[in-house]
């Protein structure tokens, strides 16, 4: 079992999942061209083309465009270069050079991807060789701009597991011990009437009636009222999430909102002051008053304490990632690597997000309830609640638990995946795009680095999630909120990413995982311990591969296989030693499994 997956431990998830280690049930091979096709995937066009590889120079080959992917294969066998890019990853496609351009390979296409790479292709300048391929790419990479469905809706993929069953809100709240005498489940949003970006099932204070909730909704941006995300099993302290209060320039107050927050504070009986974490920098929160928003004023909320966490907005994060790409692709900045990295501020932002989450987790474990919000409560708020839940609750550090966490805090509570990623949309300059979810996964990766035995999933799991965040092969991350997903019947018409993962779970399992249910994990959110996620951001560079952790993992798998070999041999020896056992091994008093068990328990 262990040895089999050694070869799969490669961080180049997309390359692997679709070219080498494909699961039998999800793929069929087209016999002639040897191109992996997914069920439901159809060929659109192909063409001989030159790939301007930044690492190997110009490479002649053939490109195949399907309704799901761009697949390039070089004619040369050594080095054999394969590009396998889901069209959902494409962010921008541009023509470069005109029919009269001079110079070799100056006529072609330039493609910018959402996963940190850019691809350049050169074509012959005769006929309209470029138009056909450009049009096909443009159409199938941006189906939403052409009134076409996402590939996820065309996919015929079948899996052993149904990932849509992973998350059931009722079951998750039940796991947390909810409802109880202080907290109730409300169906007030069943038809998305209270808040169209929230899920239908919400947990609120027992003392607050549905009528109270409606009155609070008036005072919270987009009706995103404070609702429960997580409750501490012992001290009953809660993490509540919401959007900013609609205070405005005039400093409006709302008695229902004030009362509601106090009801939340009282619920666990030991919160003297409800801590409100406003994820934004102070100045931004003040500036928001101009557009009708704002923050909880001291006078209005006497039993609360407001703390700003200084996390910047989506635009800052987008620019930061852009800068990061500039220094890692195609070439890694050589002369001033560390100062270049610092100037992107990427790790600085990671630090602020993690440090905010640590503060939330710390308050909760000391028994103090908290409220978390930013402006609308779907970007920074989701980062903070989900990361602090990851620190507090070891369930979320398992594979299924993490899937539940993403499904709950991100997907169901309306992180605007469609707008942030720009699924199938040609408008690559859209200011709504931002790598907020990637940043969250990066924070999770930082935690797995610091606590290498605390997470059931491995790095490959995280990379797979981010890859399919863009690929549009699964319905999981499509659309902005549950109400739209319901209308689009996503669960019925598309496969779930968790189906892929859960059908082949060993591939995503961390061999070092040690179950330890009681611990709160506090990562060190200092620059000293934050690293650039090289295996993700710089994975396209062939010079930089095989990070030490993967080597350690590989060696560990080898040792596990070796141990199993010894166990097996020992078993055989024991069987042959004892004639009584070998004669009737099935019913023998000492069965092989028992021997194995005995040996294992010695340690």
């Amino acid at each position, binding site marked *: 079992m262990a040895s089999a997956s050694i070869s799969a431990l490669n961080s180049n998830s997309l390359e692997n999942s679709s070219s080498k280690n494909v699961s039998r049930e999800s793929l069929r091979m087209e016999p002639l061209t040897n191109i992996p096709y997914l069920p439901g995937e159809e060929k659109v066009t192909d063409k001989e083309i030159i790939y301007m590889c930044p690492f190997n120079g110009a490479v002649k080959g053939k490109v195949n465009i399907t309704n799901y992917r761009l697949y390039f294969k070089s004619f040369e066998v050594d080095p054999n270069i394969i590009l396998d890019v889901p069209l959902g990853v494409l962010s921008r496609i541009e023509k470069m050079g005109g029919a009269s351009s001079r110079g070799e390979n100056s006529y072609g296409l330039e493609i910018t991807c959402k996963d940190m790479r850019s691809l350049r292709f050169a074509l012959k300048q005769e006929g309209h060789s470029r138009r056909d391929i450009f049009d096909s790419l443009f159409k199938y990479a941006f189906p939403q701009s052409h009134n076409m469905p996402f590939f996820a809706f065309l996919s015929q993929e079948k899996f052993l597991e149904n990932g849509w069953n992973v998350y059931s809100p009722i079951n998750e709240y039940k796991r947390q011990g909810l409802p109880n005498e202080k907290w109730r489940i409300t169906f007030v949003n069943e038809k998305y009437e209270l808040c169209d970006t929230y899920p239908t099932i919400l947990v609120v204070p027992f003392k607050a009636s549905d009528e109270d909730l409606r009155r609070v909704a008036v005072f919270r941006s987009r009706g995103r009222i404070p609702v429960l995300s997580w409750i501490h099993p012992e001290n009953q302290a809660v993490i509540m999430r919401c959007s900013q209060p609609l205070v405005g320039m005039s400093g409006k107050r709302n008695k229902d909102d004030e009362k509601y927050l106090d009801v939340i504070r009282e619920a666990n009986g030991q919160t003297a002051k409800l801590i409100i974490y406003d994820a934004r920098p102070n100045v931004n929160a003040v500036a928001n008053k101009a557009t009708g928003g704002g923050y909880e004023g001291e006078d209005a909320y006497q039993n609360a304490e407001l703390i700003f966490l200084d996390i910047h907005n989506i635009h800052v994060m987008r620019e930061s990632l852009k800068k990061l790409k500039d220094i890692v692709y195609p070439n890694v900045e050589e002369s001033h690597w560390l100062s270049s990295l610092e100037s992107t501020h990427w790790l600085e932002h990671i630090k602020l997000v993690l440090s905010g989450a640590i503060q939330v987790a710390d308050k909760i474990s000391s028994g103090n309830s908290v409220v978390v919000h930013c402006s609308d409560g779907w970007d920074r708020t989701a980062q903070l609640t989900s990361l602090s839940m990851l620190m507090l609750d070891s369930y979320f550090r398992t594979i299924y638990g993490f899937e539940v966490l993403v499904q709950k805090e991100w997907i169901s509570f309306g992180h605007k995946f469609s707008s942030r990623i720009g699924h199938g949309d040609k408008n690559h300059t859209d200011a709504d795009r931002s790598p907020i979810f990637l940043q969250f996964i990066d924070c999770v990766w930082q935690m797995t680095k610091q606590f290498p035995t605390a997470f059931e999933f491995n790095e490959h799991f995280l990379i797979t999630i981010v890859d399919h965040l863009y690929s549009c092969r699964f319905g999981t991350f499509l659309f902005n909120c549950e109400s739209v997903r319901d209308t689009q019947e996503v669960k019925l018409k598309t496969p779930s990413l968790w189906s892929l993962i859960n059908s082949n779970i060993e591939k995503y399992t961390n061999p070092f995982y040690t179950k330890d249910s009681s611990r709160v994990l*506090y990562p060190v959110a200092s620059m000293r311990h934050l690293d650039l996620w090289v295996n993700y951001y710089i994975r396209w560079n062939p010079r930089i591969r095989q990070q030490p952790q993967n080597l350690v993992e590989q060696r560990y798998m080898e040792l596990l296989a070796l141990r199993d070999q010894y166990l097996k041999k020992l078993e055989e020896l024991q069987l042959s030693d004892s004639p009584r056992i070998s004669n009737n091994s099935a019913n023998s008093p000492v069965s092989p499994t028992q021997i194995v068990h005995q040996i294992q328990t010695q340690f």
Partner: protein
Amino acid sequence: MRVEDSEFLFMLNTYNQISETDVVFDVVQQMAMDVLYCKQRIESPCFCKEEAPPLSNKLLGENDIALSCVDQIYGVHDEKKKLIIGGQVRNKYPPKLLIYCKDFRVFQFGLSYAKEEEAKKIFQGIVHHSLEPKSLKCAFAFSYCEKVLYPEVSKKIPATVMFESKDNWKLEVNRTRSSCKIAHVNENYVVSERMTNAVCQNQMYPVKIQDFSSGFLPLSDLQQSYNKFKQFFLIEEDCSDLCCLFSSLVQVMLDPHYRTTSGFQSLIQKEWVVGGHSFLDRCNHLYQKEKELEYPDSQRHSLMIPSVWDWSLQFDWKVQALFTNPLYVEKPKQDKALRKPYRPKHQRQFSLPNSSSKPSPRKSFFKEETDNLKKMLSGMRIGKWINATEMQLSATKQFYESWQRKPLDYHGLILPCLDGPAIKIWLQRYLRWIPEAQIFGGGSVLTMKKVSDLAAEIEDLKNEMEKMAHDMHAGNTTKLFFSSFHAPTRLSSSFPFASLRTWSMRPFIPTSIVQSLGSVSNLAEKEDEDTEGVVVF
């Protein structure tokens, strides 16, 4: 016996130090402890000892400072720090002392509660023994050697080759099957006081004394040659820094033997200790400002100064298990006939100097793949190295990429990746004394523990099997040290250096959160959402 010899002897026996772990550097700095100091160690009064750090040293307690490890001392008067310079201390003493150690620790001592006479004595004692020039004779090692009883050296571990004698060099020449000859031009240290008496002239290793021809030459010629040799390394005065550095690093990359414990120790002996690195100056052990080192006329062979490689003098055998990397894969003992070197069909030629010539038919123990690098090393003149052009740099890059395309062989050539993201600060060493920098219950030590446990389990199974197969008693299992720490919560990223008494469940939350974002500040002020209709871009 010549006076000069003793310096060499001193280095040979005192500073012969380094292993794969961080331990090495500490011992380099600490071995020259002063006798006096050793008799009256400073016990820090503000700490109560709860638990010794896992890597505990028999000679030095957790809060002991070897005098040779002291880097700087500050006196603190009314919150003002003043550097204390040796030799200038009169009757006064500061109420507070800040001691900065060479191993990055900082200690603070208050003297205000001590009796005046005692405080004065302590202060003057510390300053005298750590900041004032002293003679080599005072180095602790000389006194230590009179007392130490040699523990029995474990027969299991291959001995460290000290490279003190011709025989040592002969062994090495045989091991590498190289065609070099041993010159004894330096038998009486006429050529170099620093270098050993036997020098290996070699094609493979960076040459020691290149211009020597065989046999003896007139002394003046030798001196001249030596000066010429020195000129190759214009950067430094006596070629004992970069030369040691490069030659030992190259050998670690080329020769898997030097990646074993005894091999690495031997390499340090060969390239640094015997190779004449000026440990004394570089570590400033004697605190002598001018380089007028006096050499005590010790008796070269009658003194048995303990070697650092006798780890048992400092560490329990149990603790020594920490020096072992559980991930290490020993070279498999394969049937030679079965082994074929990997050769891809369409192998790209290395476009490196001298690579066009045919590989030597004689099989050396080095892998075929290293041939080109070896040629490059031996073929290039040292002068060229110094004036390496862009072209040569790109050749190195290409060499790296060609190497990278081949399957990784841990017992062949290994090259480190030099790109920015691959080079990291050695946190486990440099931050180990900083409690806030520790990840409680985390760090790579956790995976190492898992690997260690598994390795021990495999060892047990192996023994079990041998017992069953041959019906005899197998040897005791060597449980690795990691295994004694059961709960992962007991480990931290500072393992094995810090003790666990600083354990705390509360997180460390960094302050100073506000930051300037420079050019993106206009974005920072923007709304998160483009609220209904207000599209800025």
